[in-house]
């Protein structure tokens, strides 16, 4: 159900394996962190659309009088079955008269194959980014070169379902246009809440009970508990092998970002937060410094795993599943993935955000990341009208369910307007059979709240959704929404961001491990960040955010 696009690129590059991937978290489609449509340019969208060409029926089915074929390049994960054989596309072909020939590209080849196809003009009619992903920057580039076709006019005339979705979902309406106010892509729109709060903090309840301790509520109590874990041998094996707290630094799902919430700020991958409409660079805030002090105290007293900055995902997970239970507290998307089902269900509990010394109690929340560049039409396409009408089918509940969750009778039970995800046959997982029968999350379309409310999920997803309710009350009132930046800002941002994020990570590591002292080096740190362009960076987002609010 989750979709994780951009990470596949680094995956492909890094030799087929993973750094930050695991455990299904993510959906941090980088295509969507950016930019703002200008209100005035929205008007121009409603410009005259020519008369419908004769090959197409404007309404009703089939869409085309004579069958047509479209060539589609799509990023397909190796788990998926052959798209050409999937019922959802076959059913549509029967209904619409449009046959799709899929060229299915594996994620490891996607970046090059897609770019080479476009760069050499040996291009398909349609690109569905699927598992491969398509960044805003790429779409900006190719659309400014006239390779991608602007969809606004066609949507106006041929996509009633999608127009309805835009009308229903202002957050989508706000980001679907690029900064020039034009629509080039159709989205994979989703409103699953679980991805908004990806990092959850867990604590070993069994150990707490063994030691007769209460679930900690403040940072000080948490400190005491960790200390007890460290010194009082809660796993009772007579060896001080306990790791009171472990995480993987600077990771969205497994990192310490949200712990800063107890000190009045939230830090995240972008290092941005909003206070009273003002965009702030969180690692420059006073609360950040306080958070560092706290982490440093834990670290120097041996309460934080010394490997938090170095371990890879396998090592991290390995600790959760070690024969002997050794982890007291950890951070992850969902605890089954760290500790295994048995320990997750019996030993660990999610911990609500801790109250800091000043009473602060915040937790990170991300704007839902969804891909706005999931479906693109190239200039080679002779039937853009029909293509859009075909695509519009995916913005009906029926086709979306079929494309994303699969077939009734195979993947789903359907009764009284409610869907239930069926248990998989022995030896297979839900996703195994789901990916064989439908594109799963690697397509365009929608998963709206209304749809979600009508789906009965499997147990671990249900648990995750339940946990989100624990954290939600503590999330900031204002968070950075999905923004779309103009191309030159995107490029400017890329350079500054890499420098900033490197330096912040480096200094954090040095401070927490005690290699350097925060108070002594803070001034120098602030100066360096400013020299690197922290203010410009904030400015880019402030402008985009203001424009977003102005809508």
């Amino acid at each position, binding site marked *: 159900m989750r979709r994780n696009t951009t990470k596949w690129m680094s995956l*492909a590059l890094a030799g*087929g394996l993973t750094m930050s991937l695991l455990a*299904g978290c993510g959906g941090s489609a980088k295509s969507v962190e950016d930019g703002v449509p200008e209100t005035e340019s929205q008007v121009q969208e409603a410009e005259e659309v020519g008369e419908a060409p004769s090959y197409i029926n404007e309404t009703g089915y089939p869409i085309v009088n004579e069958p047509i074929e479209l060539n589609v390049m799509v990023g397909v994960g190796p*788990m998926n079955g052959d798209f050409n054989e999937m019922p959802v596309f076959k059913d549509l072909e029967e209904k619409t008269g449009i046959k799709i020939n899929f060229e299915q590209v594996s994620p*490891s080849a996607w970046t090059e194959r897609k770019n080479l196809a476009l760069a050499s003009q040996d291009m398909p009619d349609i690109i569905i980014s699927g598992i491969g992903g398509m960044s805003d920057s790429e779409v900006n580039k190719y659309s400014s070169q006239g390779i991608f076709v602007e969809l606004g006019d066609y949507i106006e005339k041929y996509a009633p379902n999608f127009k309805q979705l835009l009308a229903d979902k202002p957050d989508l309406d706000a980001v679907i246009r690029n900064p020039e106010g034009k629509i080039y892509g159709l989205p994979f729109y989703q409103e699953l809440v679980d991805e908004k709060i990806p990092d959850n903090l867990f604590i070993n309840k069994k150990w707490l009970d063994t030691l007769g301790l209460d679930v900690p509520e403040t940072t000080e109590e948490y400190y005491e508990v960790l200390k007890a874990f460290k010194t009082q041998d809660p796993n009772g094996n007579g060896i001080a092998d306990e790791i009171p707290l472990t995480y993987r630094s600077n990771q969205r799902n497994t990192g310490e970002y949200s712990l800063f919430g107890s000190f009045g700020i939230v830090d995240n991958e972008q290092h941005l937060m909003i206070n009273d409409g003002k965009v702030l660079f969180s690692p420059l805030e006073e609360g950040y410094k306080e958070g560092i002090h706290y982490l440093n105290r834990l670290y120097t007293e041996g309460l934080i795993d010394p490997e938090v900055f170095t371990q890879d995902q396998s090592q991290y997970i*390995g600790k959760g599943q*070690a024969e002997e239970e050794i982890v007291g507290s950890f951070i992850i998307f969902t605890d089954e*993935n760290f500790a295994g089902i048995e320990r997750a269900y019996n030993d660990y509990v999610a911990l609500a955000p801790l109250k800091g010394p000043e009473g602060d109690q915040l937790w990170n929340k991300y704007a839902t990341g969804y891909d706005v560049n999931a479906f693109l039409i190239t200039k080679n396409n002779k039937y853009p009208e029909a293509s859009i009408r075909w695509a519009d089918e995916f913005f009906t509940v029926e086709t979306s369910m079929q494309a994303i969750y699969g077939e009734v009778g195979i993947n789903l039970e359907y009764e009284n307007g409610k869907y239930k995800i069926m248990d998989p046959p022995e030896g297979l997982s839900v996703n195994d059979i789901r990916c064989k029968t439908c594109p799963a999350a690697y397509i365009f379309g929608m998963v709206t709240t209304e749809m979600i409310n009508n789906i009965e999920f499997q147990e671990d997803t249900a648990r995750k959704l339940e946990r989100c309710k624990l954290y939600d009350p503590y999330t900031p009132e204002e968070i950075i929404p999905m923004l779309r930046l103009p191309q030159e800002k995107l490029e400017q941002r890329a350079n500054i961001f890499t420098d900033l994020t490197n330096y912040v990570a480096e200094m954090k590591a040095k401070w927490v491990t005690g290699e350097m002292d925060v108070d002594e080096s803070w001034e120098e740190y602030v100066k360096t960040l400013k020299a690197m362009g922290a203010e410009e960076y904030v400015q880019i987002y402030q402008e985009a955010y203001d424009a977003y609010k102005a809508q």
Partner: protein
Amino acid sequence: MNINSHKFSAQSAGDKAFDIVNHTILILVALAVFYPLYFIVIASFSDPAAVASGNVSFWPKGFNLDGYVKVFENQKIWLGYRNSIFYTVIGTAVNLALTIMAAYGLSKKGLPGQGILMGLITFTMLFSGGLIPTYLLVDKLGINNSMWALVLPGAVSVYNLIIARSYMAENISGELEEAARLDGCSDFNLFFRIALPLSKPIIGVVVLMYAVGHWNEYFNALIYLRDQALYPLQVILRDLLIQTEQAANMGGDASVMEMQRVADMLKYGVIVVSSLPVLCMYPFIQKYFAQGMMIGSLKG
């Protein structure tokens, strides 16, 4: 002919010391290199959590074959092996022919234009036009989506050419050639009758380098091959790794852990599966290095 011409006990004290030190070094190096290799093998049979937490040192822990089952239940693996062997054999043959012929020609210092050619060739080692124009060229030549897209664009490696050329320049005596030439021997004859036999060690090296290069190749395959039936082993194994990662990554049910576990095991298993054939090939090529010694004594 062995350069250790005396029995150990018959050697001088200095040579004895040399032998002892030398063999100690070799044994230590071999052990240091061997252990991580052994680790990969046992890790491919072990529970990944135990591997990642450092609990697997000398014996597999939580022994299971899940990684290998995953590899071999994939029908495409055998096709991949077949394709890879095919590409490796054909590709290496083309590489070898072009490289050795050119290396011989360019090893003649007196050849007019030799210096310029070497300069121009070395230049291509440093500068290249990049992916797009190369792709366009392959497309235009019509070898896209065929084996030739994997063979031709890398038909000669500058590095190997230079190595082979320098070997030939050093080891094929000019006097011998002059003598043969006076007997009316043509350059073709010289090349086939004298240069090739004398170059066996370097041919062995060049074959090895090219063959391993083809065997490990995946990037060009990813770019140029569309037909899945043409995929070499490395691409199929990569897809397999990504497949389990994708499964783990999608989340959504309790099998995530299981998929992550298999994915971690696969990492190691895939190395065993893909490198065994090349390791088996090595001893056969090794022979050529030793053979060179006997024939080498022809010269001078």
